[in-house]
């Protein structure tokens, strides 16, 4: 208990506080820029955390994640341009309300709902994760292999339109994860004599290369075609409307429903924010007393989608912290950040890095409060970001990527890796090969390899010993059924 209390105090230190504030601001700003989104903001922010203490670094990235969630709503509401697929649900009511002369009300509804949904899921995470980690610690390599198999089956739903390409992306990511020293024999694999590769591919360089740089290159190509027309941009100064707290309280059922849906979906790897946002919207339409108003600028619609998609982010850390399995792209990038700071996510984190994990919980709550405060105070300023011309933003973000990787990874080698993966990422983007599956394959690859190798060693002398692992057997048996369900409904479930 003392450790938990000390960790909470650590999170309240000035350094961590300022890191979280900076992260929230970066997240809102980048999330609000049309064409950029929260995962890209995290990828760009990772190099900035290299010199920070682990808690300050992770706190900053959590701030970016939460800020980016609200930032995405700004572009969706004012510009009708969702930065991420899940923000498309917010545009359904957000933009009509803004166009109807109430942009501030739309943004405030999004902000309050987002923070409320996020806080609910964080609370579930804080209450549930330590207990689940105790159970996860009892799992051996066989159980872990089974959990990974079913998680991968769920993550396959992120594969976009082509399942074949999605599996290929995950396989390629897992293959590239084998670069470096073999964990069992300590012999180098695919290092080509380069000492820099002995620790594996630099994850930050790969993530920025494959995720952020190709998107910017694409935006550079689109040029003026992507520039929003002045007539379609709405600014809060146009309307003197506000959302009274009493009015927001009338949305509490919608918000809690959205938070519940988002938390449940976020706790399962792979299902994603888009499904949560649209399911919550559909549920609200079903239970609403005035369903005909949804889609015409109803605050209920904004609250439903924003509370649900924000709730996913906190809940996504449940499989990450208890099993070490990232459920989506943001969580996969956070794994990279954890590893960079010498922390391995998984059930042991509650024993080895107790102060860090409880500090993280405190930082998450702090980030929610900061999103609320910074978002409320800077609503007009952040709304102006959507008006900044793209020919100013994209060149600067590209330079930031290059400089960030150079300074954090110590030289041109990492920049070379980043550019190589930028080429790969660009082709993947154009050929509709899932980058999400690639990153998750890259992050999960070593864990899958190790657990399978350990399982084989354990079971090699007596294959019948698999029957001593009933939990694993159930999961292995359920995997084909889950796969069949997902393939059937993949288009509906897919984030891409």
């Amino acid at each position, binding site marked *: 208990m003392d450790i938990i209390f000390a960790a909470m105090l650590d999170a309240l230190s000035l350094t961590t506080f300022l890191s979280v504030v900076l992260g929230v601001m970066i997240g809102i700003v980048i999330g609000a820029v049309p064409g950029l989104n929260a995962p890209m903001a995290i990828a760009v922010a990772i190099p*900035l955390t*290299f*010199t920070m203490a682990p808690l300050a670094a992770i706190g900053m990235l959590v701030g970016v994640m939460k800020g980016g969630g609200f930032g995405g709503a700004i572009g969706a509401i004012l510009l009708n341009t969702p930065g991420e697929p899940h923000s498309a649900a917010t545009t359904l009511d957000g933009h009509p309300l803004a166009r109807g002369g109430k942009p501030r009300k739309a943004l405030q509804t999004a902000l309050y709902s987002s923070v409320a949904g996020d806080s609910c899921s964080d609370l579930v995470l804080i209450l549930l994760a330590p207990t689940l980690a105790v159970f996860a610690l009892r799992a051996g390599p066989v159980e872990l292999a089974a959990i990974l198999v079913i998680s991968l089956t769920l993550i396959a739903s992120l594969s976009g*339109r*082509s399942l*074949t*390409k999605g*599996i*290929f992306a995950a*396989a*390629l990511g*897992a*293959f590239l994860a*084998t670069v470096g020293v*073999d964990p*069992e*024999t300590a*012999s*180098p*694999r*695919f*290092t*080509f004599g380069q000492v820099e590769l002995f620790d594996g591919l630099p994850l930050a360089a790969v993530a920025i290369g494959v995720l952020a740089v190709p998107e910017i*290159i694409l935006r*550079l*190509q689109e*040029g*003026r075609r992507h*520039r929003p027309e002045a007539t379609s941009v709405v600014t809060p100064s146009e309307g003197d409307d506000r959302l009274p707290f009493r009015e927001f309280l009338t949305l509490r059922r919608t918000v809690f429903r959205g938070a519940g849906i988002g938390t449940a979906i976020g706790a399962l790897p792979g299902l994603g924010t888009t499904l949560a946002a649209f399911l919550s919207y559909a549920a609200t339409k079903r239970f609403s007393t005035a369903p005909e108003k949804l889609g015409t600028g109803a605050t209920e619609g904004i609250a439903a989608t924003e509370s649900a998609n924000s709730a996913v982010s906190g809940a996504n850390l449940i499989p990450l912290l208890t099993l070490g399995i990232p459920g989506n792209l943001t969580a996969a990038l956070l794994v990279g950040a954890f590893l960079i700071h010498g922390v391995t996510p998984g059930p042991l984190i509650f024993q080895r890095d107790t102060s860090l994990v409880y500090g993280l919980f405190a930082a998450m709550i702090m980030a929610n409060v900061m999103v609320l405060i910074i978002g409320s105070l800077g609503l007009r300023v952040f709304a102006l970001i959507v008006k900044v*011309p*793209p*020919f*100013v933003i*994209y*060149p*600067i973000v*590209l*330079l*930031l990527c*290059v*400089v960030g990787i*150079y*300074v*954090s990874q110590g030289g041109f080698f990492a*920049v070379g890796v980043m*550019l190589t993966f*930028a*080429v790969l990422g*660009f*082709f993947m983007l*154009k*050929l*509709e090969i899932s980058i999400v599956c690639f990153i998750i394959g890259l992050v999960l*690859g070593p864990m899958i*390899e190790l657990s*399978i*190798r350990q399982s*084989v*060693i354990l079971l*090699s002398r007596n294959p019948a010993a698999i029957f001593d692992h009933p939990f694993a057997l159930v999961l292995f048996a359920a995997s084909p059924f889950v796969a069949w369900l997902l393939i059937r409904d993949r288009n509906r479930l897919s984030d891409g």
Partner: protein
Amino acid sequence: MSHFSKGPGDAAGPATDLILGIVIVLFSLLLLFWIIPAQVNDAGAFGLPPSLAPRALAWLMAGLGAVLIAGNLQHGGDDPLAGKLTWQDTGHLALCILAVVLMLIVMGVVGDVIGRPYSGFWIGAPLGLIAFTLIHTRAPLWAYAFNALAAPAVIYAGFWWGLELPLP
């Protein structure tokens, strides 16, 4: 409806996913018969050899490449799930990468020649930003000035004083 060269001004080419499938299969074979044997040493392994996972994944990728080829041939090169890639895309990508590489070279060379700390950044970054802006669009003059002067200054200040990270 995907052909590698379907951009305006391009000649018609073979289906993108057919080429992608062939590239994946060839890449996997290259891994299986050349790179993995040359780069992974299985000697002295306890349990499963270190090359098992890379081999298994390479075989999986080869199989998926074959599935892509078969699927594309089945649809007669008109696969609705195929991506879209044009020669213009490839040219644009090459241009952007070239601009970044040139910026880095300028940073390195200038840094060596002048021999003053961060001189490479101060010369290379504005040139790089001007090049990126030029690639994006014909922006107004103030945008070039802002990107060339204000942006590097803010980035420098942020990294050096804010994060205490030395720039190239």
